[in-house]
């Protein structure tokens, strides 16, 4: 376990940088998590993060990538409902990195 300092708060994270306590998440924490990986969050990232967090809050689930892209296409526009678009925002892996910045658990499985 490691600790990340955000605005004077100590936030525990696991070896891969996922939050240990999901309730620690706020937008400053998200920016700090992203900065660790060289990403600066802007409006395009936030709409995906907000979408993922809302989906998780509703269903206790991070959807599989195929399902996520379909849902994002329906909710945010067809041009955004594809893996290429998500990869352009979350270059290390659309699901894993987006979940990390969103303060959600590490996705299980590889899809």
């Amino acid at each position, binding site marked *: 376990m490691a600790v990340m300092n955000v605005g004077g708060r100590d936030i525990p994270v696991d070896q891969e940088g996922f939050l240990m306590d999901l309730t620690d998440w706020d937008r400053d924490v998200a920016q700090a998590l992203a900065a660790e990986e060289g990403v600066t969050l802007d409006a395009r990232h936030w709409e995906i993060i907000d979408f993922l967090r809302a989906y998780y809050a509703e*269903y206790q689930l991070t*959807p599989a990538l195929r399902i996520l892209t379909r849902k994002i296409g329906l909710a945010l526009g067809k041009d955004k409902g594809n893996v290429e678009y998500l990869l352009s925002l979350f270059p290390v892996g659309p699901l894993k990195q987006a979940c990390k910045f969103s303060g959600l658990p590490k996705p299980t499985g590889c899809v």
Partner: protein
Amino acid sequence: MPVNNCLFILSTPPHGSAVAQETLDVILMYAAFGVPVTLLFIGDGIFQLKKNQSTAPLQLKNFSAIFRAMKDYDIDNVYADESAMTARSIQLADLLIDVTPLDAQRQSQLIESADLVFNLS
């Protein structure tokens, strides 16, 4: 052999062991790859679909909300053993998602018609 119709038989209660949650992971995986999935809840498995589950005293995640996401995975064929529901005084309105009750004969037909049957217990 391409699997055109995969039937999952769910017979365990939701939180007493990891079986229900692990099976749910398998179901979502199949569905995410576009395999048509059918679910049949029998015995205590019907408790998995009960509304208003509270897992806080067990310090477990309440994964029952995941069932409501099944429509996103195109899982629409969900059946339950009607005698199991009757024996447990469970009505359709008590359940998180729409379920079609089946008698024993129609359950047999469902199993017969599946290409692949999963029954983890």
